[in-house]
Structures are given as structure tokens and as C-alpha cells.
């Protein structure tokens, strides 16, 4: 299991290729990658992510431990960036490896639902010189109730 919180970009191809690589006992590997998304308007200059050093590490470890309790996971990876990113840049990724596909998918969705609403990150959009904090969505809070 690896959890990384970092400002610098990560090499998604290398991380995906290395995750659970060569494991003979895991039949299913899922990755999710979150990307800085520009709306149809196309006027997003940058996304800035603030976090709470100290608490972030604790929150991610707690979420990861919870996933490992609920599903039979052979491996688990969380990488989350903070700082300033351009549209199209990868913000974060999770990886889950399990004997069967359902567990790998469910664990990845669980990690994402918790990362969205329970890990101390805040997104701020920069558009044409103005800035605005991204508001939490009710649908993200609702997504937690599945688990």
C-alpha cells in the first residue's frame, strides 16, 4: 500500500504499470484518475488545491484502512496532488487490486467517494483573473450513503 500527497505531477503511466505488477494472486486491477476539467466555456486558467498538512495524511490512511477492511485487496494506491494545476493535468489517482473484479471496482469507488468529501482538500478555480472556490456537491455527500 502506498499513499502519496505531493505538489509535483506524478507519472500516471509508470504508476499504473507498476501498481500490483507481477502479482499472480490478483486477477483484477482498477485505476481511477481525476483530471482538471475545463467546462465547455474553456476559460479555466488553473485549478489550485489547498490541503491540511497532517490531517490529509491521517484522513487518507483512515480511508485506505477502511477499504482494506471491507474488501479483500491485494494492493492499494492513493496519490493526491495539491498546488496549482492546468486544465488536463492529472490531480490524483487511486489503484485497487483484488482477486475478483467486483471488489476492485467497489473499493475504487469507495475510495473516490470518501476522498471527495472526507479528505481535507479544497479546490479553487482561476478564470480570466477571477477566482472561486469549488462548492461541494450534494450528490457527493449522497454518494457516501451507499457504503
Amino acid at each position, binding site marked *: 500500500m502506498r499513499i502519496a500527497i505531493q505538489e509535483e505531477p506524478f507519472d500516471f503511466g509508470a504508476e499504473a504499470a507498476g501498481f500490483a505488477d507481477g502479482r499472480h494472486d490478483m486477477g483484477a486491477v482498477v485505476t481511477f484518475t*481525476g483530471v482538471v476539467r475545463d467546462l465547455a466555456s474553456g476559460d479555466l486558467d488553473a485549478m489550485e488545491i*489547498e490541503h*491540511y498538512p*497532517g*490531517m490529509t495524511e*491521517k*484522513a487518507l490512511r483512515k480511508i485506505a484502512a477502511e477499504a482494506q477492511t471491507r474488501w479483500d485487496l491485494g494492493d492499494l494506491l492513493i496519490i*493526491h496532488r495539491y498546488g496549482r494545476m492546468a486544465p488536463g493535468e492529472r*490531480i*490524483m489517482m487511486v489503484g485497487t487490486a483484488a482477486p475478483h473484479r467486483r471488489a476492485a471496482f467497489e473499493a475504487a469507488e469507495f475510495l*473516490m467517494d470518501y*476522498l*471527495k*468529501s*472526507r*479528505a*481535507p*482538500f*479544497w*479546490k*479553487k478555480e482561476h478564470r480570466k483573473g477571477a477566482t472561486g*472556490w*469549488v*462548492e*461541494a456537491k450534494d450528490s457527493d*455527500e449522497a454518494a457516501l450513503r451507499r457504503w
Partner: protein
Amino acid sequence: MDVLYFAWVRERIGLPKEKVETSAATVADLVEELRGREERYAAAFADLSAVRVALDQELSDFDAPLSGVREVAFFPPMTGG
């Protein structure tokens, strides 16, 4: 006690962290005390339904007791992922 602010709570209050001497029994009492201090605190805590709190880096509630707590953090709902 260290009090930390993040995102727009930090921007409204105008600083990321401060030391607060308080005898507030709960988070809600602390918020009341801060609100009474200056307009910028009143602005940050105007709508508590939009504010979350962590005690010693664990998510908590406004009615939680502060006794023994070293670090309180206030911030908007999180938007990670």
C-alpha cells in the same frame, strides 16, 4: 490552542493560523467567542451549515467539547478527488 483556517474561511478571517486563549467548553462556544471579536470572524462563521470543524485533525461536530484539544481547524465542505 492553535486555531487553523482553510479555503474561504481562511480568506475571510485573513490568516491561516492563530493562537487563541479561551475557556470555551465546546466548539460552538469557541465560534460564538470568535464571532464577537471582529466583523471578519462574524463573516466567516455567518452560516455554520457551510463550515466543518476538525479537532486534533479528526472531523468533529460543533457540540464537541474542547477539553484537551490542542488544534482546532475550521474549513468549508471538502472538495477532494
